[in-house]
């Protein structure tokens, strides 16, 4: 059923997904972005995942559960990384509505992101600003 964006209220949880950030997922991410910083070696024991791969995972659930309209523009992004994520860890990604308004023909939505690792330790939080036709 399509999401009625006008009915989404501040503080409403719009996504709550759990993912395993396995080596294949991280390797695909590193390959896609071409990261050459050299600190993300997925073959190393207890390798650390790139923080932006965690951010990408947190947005995956949002894009899916919010059923983001075609042509949506990503206008802004704020991220705070609060702990390293190990490859293989299981992450819980939540998204809540922080702002939902219409200006002219466009809806502006700010969504809060929060990610916890398998030990329920917060490893990332952030805010995404999206704009799409109202």
């Amino acid at each position, binding site marked *: 059923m399509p999401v009625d964006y006008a009915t989404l209220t501040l503080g409403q949880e719009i996504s709550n997904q759990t993912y395993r950030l396995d080596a294949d997922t991280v390797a695909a991410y590193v390959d896609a972005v071409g990261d050459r910083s050299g600190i993300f070696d997925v073959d190393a024991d207890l390798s650390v995942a790139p923080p932006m791969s965690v951010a990408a995972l947190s947005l995956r659930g949002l894009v899916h559960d919010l059923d983001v309209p075609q042509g949506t523009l990503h206008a802004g992004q704020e991220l*705070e990384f609060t702990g390293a994520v190990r490859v293989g860890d299981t992450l819980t990604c939540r998204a809540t509505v922080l702002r939902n308004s219409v200006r002219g023909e466009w809806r502006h939505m700010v969504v809060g992101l929060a990610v916890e690792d398998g030990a329920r330790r917060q490893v990332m939080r952030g805010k995404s600003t999206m704009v799409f036709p109202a």
Partner: protein
Amino acid sequence: MREGDALPTVERYVTQARIDKYAEASGDFNPIHVDADFAAASQFASTIAHGMMVAATISEVMSAAFQIDWVERGHLKLRFKAPVFPGDTVTAFGSIKSIRERDGMSEVVCSVGVRRQDGQAAITGEASVLVAQSG
């Protein structure tokens, strides 16, 4: 490390193949990124790269400069200013704006951004990281 110091730059050539890979890796198949016909009818007249794919170059700059401190105690605030198209070459850059003490650590605040080969700013923003004080 001093105020005014430049951070290492990261240059990346953007291709549709890379955008498609990012769509697979992120699960974001918004047609503005992956559907040439849909994108041709958009205001951009072309597919565009995911903002977060381009933003990853800024994180790479910060990772190269601050290593694990960036991963554990980094903060990033970005505005996506202009689209990046397949065929563009982007350069991510940064410089240290200020260094101040916070919570027994040094908070390093950096101006960061990504520009296209035509000089257009694709992303502007600020990144900060808490690092252990040396000495």
